[in-house]
């Protein structure tokens, strides 16, 4: 059944036990992303160490896809430089841009669990919500 393809084990696991989720106190910058279609809201906080994202955390409410994508995002970018994180944001956008062929690969193997969601355009925003908030947070860093 198609359900099995969208709700991959890794995705479900991240939605049940999201990583780096909770308070954002002490973050250098916090940005909010919201999906007016479903009312989901995610806040992403960056904890910087010089040019590097020492850690990235999030909080908010959303569907399993939104929570899993946020969780995977924090793992994917923590420890990276600002420009690496920016590149990843752009690659995520490209990966989920409708019409872009199957030749676009996942930005990182660790994000492969989101591949199945590409077949569901209505869920695109659920995936990208936290990535857009991250992108905005990166842009607003001094």
């Amino acid at each position, binding site marked *: 059944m198609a*359900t099995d393809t*969208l709700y991959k084990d890794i995705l*479900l696991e991240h939605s*049940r036990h999201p990583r780096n989720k909770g308070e954002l106190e002490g973050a250098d910058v916090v940005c909010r992303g919201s999906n007016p279609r*479903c*009312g989901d809201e995610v806040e992403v906080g960056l904890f910087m160490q010089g040019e590097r994202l020492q850690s990235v955390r999030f909080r908010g409410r*959303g569907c399993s*896809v939104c929570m899993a994508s946020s969780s995977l995002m924090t793992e994917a970018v923590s420890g990276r430089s600002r420009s690496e994180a920016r590149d990843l944001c752009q690659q995520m956008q490209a990966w989920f841009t409708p019409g872009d062929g199957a030749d676009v690969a996942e930005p990182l193997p660790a994000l492969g669990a989101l591949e199945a969601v590409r077949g569901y355009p209505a869920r695109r925003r659920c995936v990208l919500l936290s990535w857009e908030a991250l992108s905005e947070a990166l842009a607003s860093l001094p």
Partner: protein
Amino acid sequence: MLAASGSERHAAERLAGCSADFPLLTDAQQEQSLHYLDNAATTQKPRAVIAAISECYQEYYATVHRGLYPLAEEATRRYEQARQQIAGFVGAAAPSQLIFTRSTTEAINMVAYGWARTHLSAGDHVWVTRMDHHANLLPWQRVCREAGARLRVIELREDGTLDWQAAEGLFDRHTRLIALCQVSNVLGIVNPVQEICEQAALRGIPVLVDAAQSVAHMPVDVEALGCDFLAFSAHKMYGPSGIGALFARPERLAEMEPLLLGGGMVDRVTLDDSSWADYPSRFEAGSANLADAAGFAAAVAYLNQLGMDRIHGHVSALTRRALDSLAAVPGLQLLPQAGVDRSGIISFTLDGIHPHDIAQIAGERGVALRAGHHCCQPLLQSLGLAATVRASFAIYNTEADIDALLSAIDAARRLFESG
């Protein structure tokens, strides 16, 4: 919870075969059977409606109210016949009281900009309800802001019903208009429109009724309701998309300014000035949507043939059965809680599972549900929710659709509760 009465069971039997009238539901193009429970968003179309649209283009299509040749005269005759049928369906005293619009949304905006804008002054009040759709909120927000008028809200009781008796000042001298839905598109609750109209009439306050969710499910009669305006759409009542209607009392129509200016709505035009044609033409600038009007009339004829009382009985019985079953699902919260009577709309949440995930899993099992705020953000804010799951019933739904819904909910629970 009430058990289905004998008459309801009878109605259900008489309607049972009607899904065969809907090609999309029966001419299975899908690999699995479709359990269509998103009827509050839009309904499927019976063959009679599809045929009426097709017949128009094949047999009598021409310009309306403009041509002098026989084909155009026939087109005009059919268009006015459609108006007459639809006006009759909602109990309008005269066909001219029914204006064709694109949608309920356009009909409400027509009243907001065409009527309210010239009737509102600073200090006036316009009332809406907590459960109104954005389409019956945003136009009032804007015209009130422009006029310096105050937009006031009838709140809900704990059980979700309209607490209109507690709305202080609802019928006082500041109130210029009350705009409310007859049936909530989220809660399914039926509002006491007739009682509100009676009270409003005593003080000469006009009432606009958003009937988008009621016309397909219960007999709606503007004379019995006593409303000044009634807005509805064809596509939620088995008719075509892209056409709706506004009923208005003659005195309101006389007070209303046209929203769109152009061909077909004028009496005399010079380069300096123009005067308007009589209503309904005054409010229908541009070429008429003949084929959809024909489809709209065919939908009305189809509903009349099934009988609105029977339709109401069938949908109510199904809704009650669904409520009984849903109330027994662990972790499932009904909105409003079980026991509150409602039309064919059920909203719910499930502990620990986001509405989007439930709708997705259901969708993949052939059950079409809606998840989200349903264009009612102020209502969901008051409930402390971002989204709900909504199942909404129609004439072609059966027990099998309820079973499929329950089984989809069960699948969602198993998926998210394991591990």
